[in-house]
């Protein structure tokens, strides 16, 4: 099923083209990450900070992902790559990852760089379909981590992927309620209560399709007050206390921290998002790509993903 938690691609499609094209290859080290999510965070007034971050990122040319032997731009831009390094791995590794992975992969990239001092990880976050499209059109990526199996399958079909994609995380829906749970919500049944303020995603967007599936399995006819255009819009309304309950992804609840309370429900198993990761065909730095994929799927990656609310494959 074409469901992925953050629905960034569709959001990205609505953004001006110039925004989208600025996504590729932000350097982790100097400035942090600008993502499709930044458009949403602007909701929370963080836009200025992220804009500065965005300005620190520049669209990479194909040279940015140069391999171990010749890496003029990498050597220029990254102080770490000048250091004498472990002979096995060096150079840049460019990782294209779904926007819902922003926090987790940023942390993992830092610890991966510490473990492999010669390697510099460049991250680019965006909606999975947008990233896949960029890879198919020859973007110089080494690793692709998708929030959606269908998108990955499409990339495989387009011969943009080397080898077989590996599942590394899953994500499920969760009920989100404001602090204090003013509507006394305990289960999915609350979504049928007309006296409560309810927000869900519109069925046209992936989170809405997933919501419809769990409601069908639970035999509940929801009575929403608003059909939001993406999952973060639902989360915002819960955070602000404007609705008594919303249906979002488990990782969104984790991101929101203390501002919302997550309530798991048994029927969430009816719509599980599966995240595959793979090495890109013609990856400029295949050795580092394989190492990064192993790292994400290894114990450290597992732990970071679990902390962010992702499930095990």
């Amino acid at each position, binding site marked *: 099923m074409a469901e992925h938690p953050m629905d960034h691609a569709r959001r990205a499609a609505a953004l001006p083209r110039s925004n989208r094209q600025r996504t590729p290859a932000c350097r982790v080290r100097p400035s942090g990450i600008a993502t499709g999510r930044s458009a949403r965070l602007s909701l929370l007034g963080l*836009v200025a900070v992220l804009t500065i971050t965005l300005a620190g990122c520049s669209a990479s040319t194909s040279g940015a992902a140069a391999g171990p032997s010749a890496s003029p731009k990498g050597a220029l831009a990254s102080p770490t790559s000048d250091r004498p390094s472990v002979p096995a791995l060096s150079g840049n590794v460019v990782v294209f990852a779904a926007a819902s992975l922003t926090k987790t992969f940023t942390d993992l990239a830092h610890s991966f760089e510490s473990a492999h001092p010669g390697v510099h990880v460049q991250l680019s976050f965006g909606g999975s379909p947008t990233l896949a499209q960029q890879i198919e059109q020859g973007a110089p990526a080494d690793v692709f981590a998708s929030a959606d199996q269908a998108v990955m399958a499409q990339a495989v079909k387009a011969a943009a992927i080397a080898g077989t994609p590996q599942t590394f995380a899953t994500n499920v829906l969760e009920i989100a309620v404001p602090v204090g749970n003013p509507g006394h919500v305990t289960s999915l049944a609350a979504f049928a209560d007309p006296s409560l303020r309810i927000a869900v995603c519109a069925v046209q967007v992936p989170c809405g399709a997933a919501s419809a599936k769990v409601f069908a399995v639970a035999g509940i006819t929801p009575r929403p007050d608003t059909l939001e255009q993406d999952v973060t819009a639902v989360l915002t309304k819960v955070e602000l206390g404007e609705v008594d309950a919303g249906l979002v992804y488990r990782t969104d609840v984790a991101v929101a921290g203390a501002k919302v309370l997550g309530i798991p429900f048994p029927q969430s198993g009816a719509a599980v998002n599966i995240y595959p990761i793979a090495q890109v065909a013609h990856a400029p730095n295949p050795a580092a790509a394989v190492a990064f994929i192993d790292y994400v799927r290894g114990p450290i990656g597992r732990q970071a993903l679990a902390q962010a609310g992702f499930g095990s494959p």
Partner: protein
Amino acid sequence: MRRRQPGASGVPVILLVPALVGLAFLVIPLLGLLVRTPWSSLPGQLAAPGVRSALQLSLVSATLATAVSLVLGVPLAWVLARSRVPGRSMLRALVTVPLVLPPVVGGVALLLGLGRRGVLGQYLFSWFGISLPFSTAAVVLAEAFVAMPFLVVAVEGALRAADQRYEQAAATLGADRWTTFRRVTVPMVAPGIVSGAVLCWARALGEFGATITFAGNFPGRTQTVPLAVYLALQTDPQAAIVLSLLMLSVSVLVLVGLRGRWAGGLA
């Protein structure tokens, strides 16, 4: 002193060329919309459930938003143009804030101000049980928030350009200030008020960001045409094109009609 004008149209080439480029720039995207319109399936798309209610809601809420803007915005423009209240330039900057604010941020600001837990909204809710978000009233408020500055700026400009001696003459003839405002000032700046209202209405009709954030999206209650277009774009781009075309036609018809009837000759 009149110079001979080149060309039959009387437009100098140095103005004509950029004018034509400007026109092409505005028209080519619309042309793209027209070219891609699925004409054969048009009637079926227009008859789809929800289209009528979305259009009706759009027209009603944009008109109400314009009415709200007129009632509040014309006096505000007068204060900005004529009064001697201190900090007027600051006030003027505040009035134009919604023009520069990304509409989605405007929507969040409205939630924080008038939402169920907002600065003012929490009292509306706890004292009167009024909760604005997710209601048609919220659509009107979101549209007025974004569109009113257009009206205020237009009317203020007209007031500044108007000759104040007529008002002074009225005052010397014994008219009180309200009578002067009603019988002299308003008729004098009527063209500015009309064109400001037209701008305001057009902006309200196309409003998306503040509306979907503050009022949410529910068919028949808060789903205006721009919201329906956005969601249709996710799954059915053709339906989105048809909806866009529908809104375009309705707004052009209304604007042309208004210009002809109320503002003919002054635009």
